[in-house]
């Protein structure tokens, strides 16, 4: 099984204070830490498990600036064989469609059995790149994949798609195909110290717009089909009544409120 894993380097925002940039169309990234997108980490692990079981190779590919090398190297440290970074100043402002276009340019002449992406990126939450890439490559796809099984020596795969409320749908899909991977499909490993050491020396293949045979109007904002006009804080609705004080004080207040309401 030769697998391509698309990985995105994303800011960790769950615990961070987000500051909207002056132009209103992005956030200040200076004080944020970045890491591999959560679902992409599961996608990489799925590829590593297949490699252990069926042999073959793993290529990780990303569209992003130089800082992204950190995430790509971590994938190499865990066992990816080849690393590709696609970068060009012209790529700035690409939406999911344009990102898929860039990935497509790099993958269209490559040989592989499966392309894996995450179900969605945690920053933009689009959930678009995988299926669009499949369409561009002329391949079938399955989104929201939570279990996989390779059949007939890699001619087909039987996958579980996660639906709502704990229900799964089992589908069989012809390979090569694109699968978008949901979190929880496996238990992602940690990189070994030796792996990390080796990965620092790994060459990351770099290609820009021209090398990929792309034109200016196919990438960046020009090649995008949607435009983020403006970011804004969510409207404040009926917010919670916030209890203040030491943990002892807030606990006591809460217990009082819950007792008054007859909840406990």
């Amino acid at each position: 099984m030769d697998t391509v894993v698309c990985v995105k380097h994303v800011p960790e925002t769950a615990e961070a204070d987000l500051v909207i940039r002056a132009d209103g169309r992005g956030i200040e990234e200076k004080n944020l830490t970045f890491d591999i997108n959560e679902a992409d980490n599961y996608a990489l692990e799925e590829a590593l498990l297949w490699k252990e079981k069926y042999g073959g190779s793993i290529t990780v590919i990303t569209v992003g600036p130089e800082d992204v090398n950190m995430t790509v190297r971590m994938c190499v440290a865990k066992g990816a064989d080849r690393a590709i970074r696609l970068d060009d100043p012209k790529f700035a402002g690409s939406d999911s469609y344009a990102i898929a276009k860039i990935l497509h340019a790099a993958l269209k002449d490559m040989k592989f059995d499966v392309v894996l992406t995450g179900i969605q990126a945690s920053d933009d939450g689009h959930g678009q790149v995988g299926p669009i890439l499949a369409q561009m490559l002329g391949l079938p796809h399955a989104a929201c994949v939570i279990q996989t099984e390779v059949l007939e020596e890699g001619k087909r795969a039987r996958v579980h798609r996660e639906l709502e409320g704990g229900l799964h749908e089992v589908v069989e899909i012809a390979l090569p195909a694109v699968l978008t991977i949901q979190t929880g499909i496996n238990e992602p490993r940690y990189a070994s110290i030796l792996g990390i050491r080796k990965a620092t020396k790994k060459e990351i293949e770099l290609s820009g717009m021209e090398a990929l045979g792309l034109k200016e109007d196919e990438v960046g904002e020009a090649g995008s089909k949607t435009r983020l006009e403006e970011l804004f804080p969510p409207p404040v609705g009926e917010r919670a009544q916030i209890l203040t004080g030491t943990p002892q004080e807030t606990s006591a207040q809460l217990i009082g409120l819950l007792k008054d309401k007859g909840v406990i």
Partner: protein
Amino acid sequence: MGDVFVLAEHRRGELREVTLEMLGKGRELAGQLGGQLKAVLLGHNVDAFARKLANQAHEVLVVEDKRLENFNAELYQKVLASLLTEKKPTLTLIGHTACGMDLAPSLAAELNLPLATDCIGFEFENGRLLAIRERYMGKLQSRVSFKGSEQYMATVRQAAFPIRELEPLSGQIVSVESPLTEEARRKKFIEYVEAAVGEVDITQAEIIVAVGRGIKEKENLAIVEKLAQVIGGVLAGSRPVIDAGWLPPDRQVGQSGKTVKPKLYIAVGISGSSQHLAGMKNSDTIVAINKDPHAPIFNVATYGIVDDLFKVVPALTEQLSSGS
């Protein structure tokens, strides 16, 4: 021109709620666009659905085909590509569900249409349609415009729009011939698999203590377990806690887990992503304990404590056990 199409989603003999939510919003949007609202129904033996949809749409386009009995993105894409090319609706709405996520992006790419996913609102600015969607897991929102095109697509978040009691429309049911000529070649539906039934049914609990990624390590679960015990509740979790294997799958609250509506829901170290909120936001009383004052969970909580859970949870447990 100006028509809004809404793709009806159904599964195992039931029309899914997101369909009616989209029809409610879709009627308003069709009015603003000066067009008609049309429901698009693909399936096999779906007359009853068609009649129900006709109540809430100016027209129902029905594609009846045995091959469309169960959702299959490959076949749905074929049918919709042909329908949208012929009818050219201005806006097509599809649910942001597991089906919509499998279907909409590749369909839009095939038709070369702009697509905004997981939309929670729509606005018009000088006659131009803008989609509202979240970013950074709900910490910010954004306005998104569609690139110069006569046709757009959007997927709509489940439960983002209420099912409205609107005046019935008694729309016409129009049957459209299926463009399918063969079975799906590359993607075959095999079967549905139900979630395994666990030992505890959290949907029956009156009090739930739910724990999220903020708990950091499996070992730390003991402190929330203790709280659940003294308050007489059951322990549940957000997805990362289940993904990590710290709690069994039947304890997951949210869109892909259980929907609960207890008397009291205590969310500990949970940020409040839309997928989590989908499973608990209708609880009677919600308490959130989170150190981030901007965590979206505080938008649905009744009471909030902005502090370190490792200090608050033990204090709360201690007072509850000494007080009783």
